[in-house]
Structure formats: C-alpha cells, structure tokens
C-alpha cells in the first residue's frame, strides 16, 4: 500500500511521518519512507540523526549529476531505491527525492516535484508500505497524484489556515479519486479533531500536544527514540489502525540491498 502525508508547513507532517513509519516497521511491515521535501528532514524524525540525514543521497541530484534530464525515459524506481536508499531500524529504508543545494540546477522547471511523481507512482508497493512525506502545501499533493488505492493523511494544527489547507487537501484527494482519507488534528484536542472532521467531511484523529515531541523538535531528535511511550508517539501508533493497514504484514518482499 501507499500512504502520503500532506498539510500546511509546520503542521507536523514530518514528525508524524517519522513516527508512523517506525511504528509500521516495528510491527513487521516492510517500509519505504520517501522524503519528498526538497528541504529534506524526514531522516531526523525517523531516527537517522543529523549527519546521516544530511549525507543521504538525493535521487534527483544524483540523476542530474549522472547527466540525466527530466526528459529522460523513467529510470527504474526499484533500482533507484536500491542504489540511493539508506537502511534504518527494523528494515526500514529511506529514499530522499531531492535536495536544493545550489541556486542553479538542471531541472528548474519542475524541481523535485516530477521525481516525486515518478517515484510515488512507479515504486512497486506489493507486500510493502511506501510512505511519502510531502513538501508543505497543496502543490506537491497534486504532483504526487495519489489514486484510488492510496491513503492520504492530511495534517493540521488547530489554526484557521491549517484547517483550511487540510480541507482543500481532502477535496483535492477526492478529486483524484482517493477513497481512504484521514484528517489529523495535531497538537490538538478531541474537540479540535471533531471540528476538523466537520469542516473536511472525513474522519479526523487527534494527536495531543506533547512536551516530549516539543523537546525532540527543539533538539533535532526522533520522538520515537527519545520517548516512545509519550502520548503523541502512542497516538501515532493508534493512527495506524485508521489507515487500513493489513493486520499482519503480507508476504514480505525483501528490500533491495543498499
């Protein structure tokens, strides 16, 4: 199955994506985490640490370095995962889509968006969970183009702007044919989630404000590692039950060697 995490900037997408991927991997699922933000940070909340996160090769940058352009025939996504993915806890694998490193690049017209599109659309997902943490805002959701079989998790802090962006993300996902949508009210109460559900028309799940997550955010650490039994990390574990993830992992497809 494939999951995308979307929402306003600062809503908590990356924090939730990181802990969600760790919960899924710990439960025995083969997880591929796609960091689709060209300002990549998912490695931090997955627990890779700052150095490995910064050093992780980015697919778009590597392709450009190798002389590819966006007009090339699609490179084999499984091969890219094998070549550029990095291994984390419980068999989890992180693939960084792109990283803005300089002001001039070969693919200014589409940046990392089209690479996101190709990887999210074409990466085989039978027997594994592909979880994509998108760039802030609605544009990357349009590019990722989730479909009928995919799950969209739209995250909002309880602010008017955050709720409005999630409302639009849900509408957009429905336009794209996505049938399984979950809204998440982050750093929020149950009544905030009820309000979010009312506004979006989709089920909404509350993740509470949590000093342990705030402390991990301040220090650049993964909440799943610093305090796995904190209320927000436990809530993200419960969120798994809302996504329609198979109870027991399907026949596992071995991840390609790094």
């Amino acid at each position, binding site marked *: 199955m494939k999951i995308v995490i979307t929402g*306003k*900037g*600062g*809503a908590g997408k*990356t924090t939730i994506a990181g802990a969600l991927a760790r919960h899924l991997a710990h439960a025995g699922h083969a997880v591929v985490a796609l960091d689709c*933000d*060209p*300002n990549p*940070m998912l490695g*931090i909340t997955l627990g890779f640490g*700052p150095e490995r996160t910064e050093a992780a090769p980015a697919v778009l940058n590597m392709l450009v370095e190798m002389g590819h352009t966006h007009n090339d025939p699609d490179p084999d996504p499984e091969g890219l995962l094998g070549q550029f993915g990095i291994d984390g806890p419980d068999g989890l694998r992180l693939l960084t889509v792109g990283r*803005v*490193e*300089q*002001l001039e*690049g070969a693919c*200014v017209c589409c*940046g*990392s968006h089209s690479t996101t599109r190709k990887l999210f659309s074409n990466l085989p997902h039978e027997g594994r969970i592909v979880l994509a943490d998108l*760039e*802030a*805002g*609605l*544009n990357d959701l*349009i590019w990722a*183009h989730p479909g009928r079989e995919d799950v969209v998790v739209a995250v909002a*802090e*309880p*602010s*008017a*702007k955050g709720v*409005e*962006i999630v*409302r*639009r*993300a*849900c*509408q*957009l996902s429905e*336009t*794209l044919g996505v049938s399984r949508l979950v809204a998440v009210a982050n750093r929020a109460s149950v009544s905030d989630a009820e309000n979010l559900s009312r506004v979006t028309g989709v089920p909404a799940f509350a993740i509470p404000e949590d000093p342990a997550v*705030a402390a991990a*955010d*301040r*220090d*650049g*650490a993964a909440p799943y590692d610093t305090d796995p039994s904190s209320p927000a990390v436990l809530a993200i574990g419960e969120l798994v039950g809302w996504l329609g993830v198979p109870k027991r992992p399907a026949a596992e497809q071995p991840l390609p060697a790094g």
Partner: protein
Amino acid sequence: MGEAPSAPAGSPSSVRPLKVAIVGSGGVGKSVVSATLARTLARRGRDVLAVDLDPNPGLAYSLGLAPSDAGLPPETTIEVKGGLYGWGPAPEVDLATGAMTLSRLAPDGVRYLSPGKIDGKTVNKSEVKRCLGTVRLLVDHLEAPWDIVADLEAGTTTPYEGYARFAEVIVVLATGSWRSCLAARRLCALLPSVPLVVVASKSAPGASDAARWGLPVQHHIPFDPEVAAAERRGLAPLDACPDAPALSAVASLADLLLKVAP
C-alpha cells in the same frame, strides 16, 4: 502612471522604498510577520504592496482581509514563451505599475497582490503558473516608490527558483526548533546575498535555542500566546491583539529593515 492608485497626500515621494522577501521553513510565522510588517509600514504613512507568493492560503488571514482564491483575470495576462516566468502582463497592463493596478485594498491602506490559490476543486497546475509568473514579473518591474513585503512559499525551493529577485533584503525566519534552524541555515547558504536572520519563537526561549543551533540571530520576536490565539481563529494579530508584545517586536523589525536596507 496611468490608472495606478495615487499616493496618499503628504506621502514623501523621495522615500527610498523597502523591498523585502520573507522566507523560512513551514509554520515559522512568515505570513504573520509579513502581514504585520506591511501594515506597520503603512501606518507610518508609507505606500506598501504586500505580495503573496504562496499558492496556499495564509497571508490574507494575517492581513485581516477576506480570503479569496481569485488570481489575475485572464485578460490581464499573456503567455510569454521562452520568458523568464513563462507568463507576463497583457499589453494593456503597464509593466511598471501593473503590480499596483492588479492589487486589492487591504486594511491600513496596504495593497495586496495575490497569484490566486489552489482551491482543491481542480488539479490544474497551469492556472497557478499563469498567475504566479505574471505576479513575479510585475513585482520585479514595479517602478513606483512603494515598499514591497513578499511572503514566500515554505521551504528552500523559492530561492532556488528565483522568487526573491526583486528583494533588496531577505529575512530568513526560524523558530527555536532544530529543524527550522536547519532550514534557515540551508537558506542562508543558498541565498545570493546575506540575509537578515530573525527568530520568531513558538515557545520560550527560542532565540537562545536558535543560537545554539548555529544561527546568527539578528532579531527576536518573542513567543506570544495572544498572537497564537489570533492565528487559531484566523484573525490579523493587529486587529485581534494590537498591544501584544510580539507586534512591538515586528515594529522594531521594521526599524531594523529600514536601517539595513541599501
């Protein structure tokens, strides 16, 4: 100047305009700071154009303006094949003043220019490209002595795509969080000129955390629960909590910007 809005009487025509772009990671307060800065400058009698360069809704809320998804009317834009942004103003729109004529009035006399918003009903990317390209070209070419305060989209893509070409000062905004400071450091390394680094704390202490993460903080906007409450409700802080301490800190940021602007 054609049909451009005329400058208010008594406005000093020799004032050197301030051209500032605000960048940073998502959720660091770019829209709140942009909107408050724009209105603060306008209250001092300056002519201010607030430019919304984010196709996601945000800046209008913080300005206290009814949000609208409307972009530029189709008859005001024209495709420019091979042009810098792919689109530009139609021949009837004056390149030097179009940024003002196509803007709408916001509180305190600020003019608000928006490229329209992704409304969620369609997945049409070309509409965003049409309006955003034209807005960017017009802002680059604005000749009137108006201040420009531009609110950019979250992350590091906007400087990469040259969204701040018009700006003479770039403000990099962060909170105290490690990740927002990493994004700010990445932005500082990417930007063509030395930016002004500002920390807007989302919790105490904020500024000392940012310094700990290697960010050369030049101005600090303190955590302010009243501003947070206004954000929750989607109100402009200058209307909801005019006496909040964070707003005085934005006023001092205006002083600082006027001092450091070339």
